[in-house]
């Protein structure tokens, strides 16, 4: 029972892996998957594009256009692999770093940027995308996801729910309560924990003494650790878990073993608390490079393809940037709108008073 969290280069033995960092396809007895060349190219494209969006967002923050940004750098495979495992009918509950999953759910990236720019606290329609709003209070969305899954059960629907949270979040009471609820009600849910080894400045050892995926066993459902930098494995494992959930086999916890390559957010300075060589070791396990190597080696894509994707990424980056800059500030009255669905005398009065007050300046 000692800490078992090799944040360095060595993959722990129990890890499900289908694609090595060198781009070699490996077999796994339980989780194999068939992917066409087209599918792999498509995953590659996703990975590259979301990384590009992320880079652009970091740059925009540096230039003062966003208040803050939480980068997904390094976690692309975990998010694209799991995100692409979802069907349209499935519902996803993110934390605040799931830009890759948002991409899979067709949420306009500019809407994500809007939140960090401060034009709204949400921005997209969760029902339209079956992708809930970002949740900033760590862990609280896990219970929403279980409740939603209980709703799916009651509807008799052919769907599952997935909820995303980090290694740090596993310490919150709410996340543990969500395990209990899910188990007791046999809810169709997948707990997808991106263990990126850090919760701001705190290493995994501050949250657990044993591998996180083992937490599930204490609540009576299966836990699996997957190579979070391996998009094939993340896709395979999540797909299976979702299918189990849809079939009434209850919850699964997936620990995607990955690494936060960047700062916690643009406000953070990781040099204060972690060593550069840890980062270097993880660079060798980059989620994109290994897919590229695989495509190359197996001649499933040529230079032209990669250039095309890069060009698409650049265009996307530019588009996101220009639309972000064009985001209008909301009007003052937006402070008051939608707080309540119905009329609310107090709020209505405050709105009117404030707008009158503001109008006074224009005179």
């Amino acid at each position, binding site marked *: 029972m000692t800490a078992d969290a090799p944040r360095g280069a060595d993959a722990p033995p129990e890890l499900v892996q289908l694609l090595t960092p060198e781009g070699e396809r490996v077999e796994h007895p339980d989780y194999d998957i068939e992917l066409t060349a087209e599918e792999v190219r498509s995953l590659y494209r996703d990975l590259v594009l979301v990384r590009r969006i992320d880079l652009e967002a970091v740059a925009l923050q540096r230039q003062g256009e966003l208040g803050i940004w939480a980068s997904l750098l390094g976690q692309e495979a975990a998010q694209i692999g799991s995100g692409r495992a979802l069907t349209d009918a499935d519902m996803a509950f993110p934390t605040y770093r799931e830009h890759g999953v948002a991409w899979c759910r067709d949420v306009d990236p500019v809407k994500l940027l809007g939140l960090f720019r401060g034009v709204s606290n949400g921005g997209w329609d969760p029902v339209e995308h079956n992708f809930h709003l970002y949740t900033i209070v760590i862990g609280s969305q896990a219970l*929403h996801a279980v409740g939603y899954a209980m709703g799916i059960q009651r509807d008799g629907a052919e769907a599952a729910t997935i909820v995303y949270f980090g290694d740090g979040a596993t310490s919150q009471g709410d996340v543990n*309560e969500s395990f*209990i*609820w899910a188990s007791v009600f046999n809810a169709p849910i997948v707990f997808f924990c991106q263990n990126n080894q850090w919760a701001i400045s705190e290493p995994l050892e501050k949250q657990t003494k044993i591998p996180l995926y083992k937490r599930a066993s204490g609540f009576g459902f299966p836990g699996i650790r997957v190579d979070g930098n391996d998009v094939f494995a993340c896709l395979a494992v999540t797909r299976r878990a979702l299918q189990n959930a849809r079939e009434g086999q209850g919850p699964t916890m997936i620990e995607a073993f990955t690494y936060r390559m960047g700062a916690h957010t643009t406000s953070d300075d990781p040099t204060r608390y972690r060593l550069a060589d840890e980062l270097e070791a993880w660079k060798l396990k980059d989620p994109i490079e290994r897919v590229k190597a695989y495509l190359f080696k197996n001649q499933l894509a040529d230079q032209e393809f990669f250039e095309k994707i890069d060009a698409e990424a650049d265009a996307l980056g530019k588009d996101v940037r220009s639309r972000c800059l064009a985001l209008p500030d909301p009007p003052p009255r937006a402070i008051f709108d939608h707080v309540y669905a119905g009329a609310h005398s107090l709020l209505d009065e405050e709105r009117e008073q404030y707008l009158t007050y503001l109008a006074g300046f224009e005179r």
Partner: protein
Amino acid sequence: MTTLTLAKALNEGLRRSMEDDPKVLVMGEDVGKLGGVFRVTDGLQKDFGEDRVIDTPLAESGIIGTAIGLALRGYRPVCEIQFDGFVFPAADQIITQLAKMPLRSLGTLKLPVVVRIPCGGGIGAVEHHSESPEAYFTHTAGLRVVACSNPVDAYTMIQDAVRCDDPIIFFEPKRRYWDKADVDLAAPGLPLDRARTVRQGSDVTLIAYGPMVKTCLEAAAAAEEDGRDIEVIDLRSLNPLDVDVLTESVTRTGRCVVAHEAPVFTGYGAELAARITERCFYSLEAPVLRVGGFSTPYPPSRLEDHYLPDLDRVLDAVDRTFAY
């Protein structure tokens, strides 16, 4: 007309809500077979099944958190918090999630969740079973907060609360659960956000809600014998506040006393006093006075009669407004 206790009126109201709308769920600790420790959900599980009347694991954050998820899926959960003092483990889900999610979604999401809380003291209970936490929630924008005081209102208010698309904290006056009244099961109620003048008077306005309404009516009756004509207003809705009814009354009477069981300091009465003073400054003959709990935790039950504002303390405050 049917004679119902307040608890039974809530039960009938819930039953009707569940009959009317298959999306209405009831959830909480012991709400199923037991029918709740106060029997407010008695018989509902038997008639609507375990999928609609859900005995939950013992965790309040879990109750509210999963209710939010169910609401996101289109359900209308009515959650029971077993006792007032046990709402705090759910504080985060209520304050940071339930209250704020509609705005966060720019109105795309509605969260029709009702959080029922038996509240207040006077039943000789142990710690955490006699509290009045309303001010924590009235100060939380995004929530509606209501409190029923009698069986007639209880019956319609719970149905209106279930029908409302906003999250609602619904306070039930524990020590009045067994009070009876004739309830017309077909009569519509006053809109949920409206106060009711439960006794007309001209000398002073007495404002209360929940369990204190009865105390205030008794105080008014006693004062009548001394020739003092007290108007009593039952707020019913604490957020939003039906301030026009209060303004009209205090403008007329010139004096006002507010009473609640919660501690006075930063309590809900402070808002009433401040707001009424803003509105009725020139009409007030005396400051709005507050009667309530002390700035202490709720005391052990052998002392609760001292803590709970009674007829004498209410009338003492009334007298003091006449000393100005």
